[in-house]
Structure formats: C-alpha cells, structure tokens
C-alpha cells in the first residue's frame, strides 16, 4: 500500500480530464508531497507515467483494484518541481 498526502477523485472522467485535473491539483501541493489520483479510465496506466516524464514529477507507483465490478486505478505522483 502506497501512501499519499492528497487524494484526487477523477472517477467517471475520461481522457484528458484526469490529466488536466492532476496538472491543476499538483500546484496546490508542496515539494515532496504525494498526490494520489483515483481513476476508472484504464488509459491512466500509460498516461500518468507519460505526464510525469514530460512535466518532471515522479511517478511513485500505481495500484489497481476491483470495486463493484469496475477497475479502479490509483496513480501516485510525487511533486518534484
């Protein structure tokens, strides 16, 4: 289980909304804090690492779980700049 400081719920939103919401939310964090982005869009598995690579934040990890017959993805992003 990874730990986070702030959680961001993007359930029900499709691309590009989770990424846009993440890019706005990360501004509220202080350096070194971890943002947990919760999404049910499978694209986030690839999109979040790509976003981190481009923006210079650190992708700490990704967790998957099944909740009420749907897959939930939790991406952990550490504010690094």
């Amino acid at each position, binding site marked *: 289980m990874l730990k986070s400081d702030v959680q961001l719920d993007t359930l*029900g*939103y*499709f*691309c*590009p*909304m989770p*990424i*846009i919401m*993440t*890019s706005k939310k990360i501004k509220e964090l202080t350096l070194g804090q971890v943002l947990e982005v919760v999404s049910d869009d499978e694209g986030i598995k690839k999109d979040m690492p*790509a*976003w981190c690579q*481009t*923006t210079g934040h650190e992708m700490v990890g990704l967790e998957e779980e099944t909740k009420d017959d749907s897959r939930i993805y939790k991406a952990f992003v550490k504010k690094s700049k």
Partner: protein
Amino acid sequence: MGPTKLEPATMLAELQESKPDRVTIVVLSGDFDRVMAAFIIATGAAAMGMQVTMFFTFWGLNVIRREGATSGAKDLLRRMFGFLNKGGAGRLPLSRFHFLGLGTCMMKQVMRQNRMPGIAELRETAQDLGVKFIACTTTMGMMGVTKDTLIEGVDQLAGVSTYLAEARQGSVNLFI
C-alpha cells in the same frame, strides 16, 4: 543596451532550459468530432506543460465565433452564406451520422451521460490552461466574420506567416 553575450554552449543550454515544447494545431474542420480531438490534444498538451497554439481557419473558425453569429458582410452572397453557416461551438455537426442534427444530438446526450466535456467546455478549459487562439484573417474577410462576433479571449488575428513562425518552433504540428 545590447543583448548579454553568452558562451555558445551556455546559450544553447539556456535556450533548451527555457524553451518549452511547442505544439501547433491548425483547425480547418468545423466537424464536432474533429474539433473535439483537436481540443483534447490541445488541453492534454497544455496540461503536460507544453505551449500550445491553435490556428482556426475556414470551417474551424466557427468554433471561436459566438453562438449563432451570422455574417457582417454588406453583400447579399456573403450574407446568405453567413445565414447558412452560423457560428458557435454548440452548432458543429458530426462528420458522420449527423442525420439533420438528430445523430449529433444523440451523441451529445451520450457524452453528457458519461460526464464527458462538450466542445464549449473543452474550449474554456483550453483557455484556462493558456492555449493560444489565433483566428485566420483571410477566412474572416472571405466569410464576412467581424472581430466583435468572435468569442472573448481570441489572442490574435493573423495569417499564414504567424502560423509558420509558430510551427517552425513546434515539435508537434497538427492539421485537423
């Protein structure tokens, strides 16, 4: 005062440091689906910290015209054309299955049910994220579109040289 002299190596490093990735998108189409793709790429790129410019031309100009705007031209032909080609993000037809508006209406309903943003919302998000909008003056002149019938926040009215000046700096240049 002249520019500060820098060692070539430092200069290059500084340039690379300060230069964000640039994306330009020419929006020629006024089709709902194509414009949606253009905005998804634009907002996604802006969220990734890239500098994005959208250049709206021909049918694409309708996207940044006010809802229901007609032609401000004096001559009959252009006025007639303006009546048939009203502006507004809410009026864009699907490129396929438009079915006199029924198909597009159903598509919008499906999108709403799935909490997907529409064209107007995507456009607003793009503006929030600092995406630059340029309106093509040639199309404006040809269609009799005046500046006051464009939406708020159009950054520039310009032509092909402005686009090319931006595009030659861009690492991603799209034509939609």
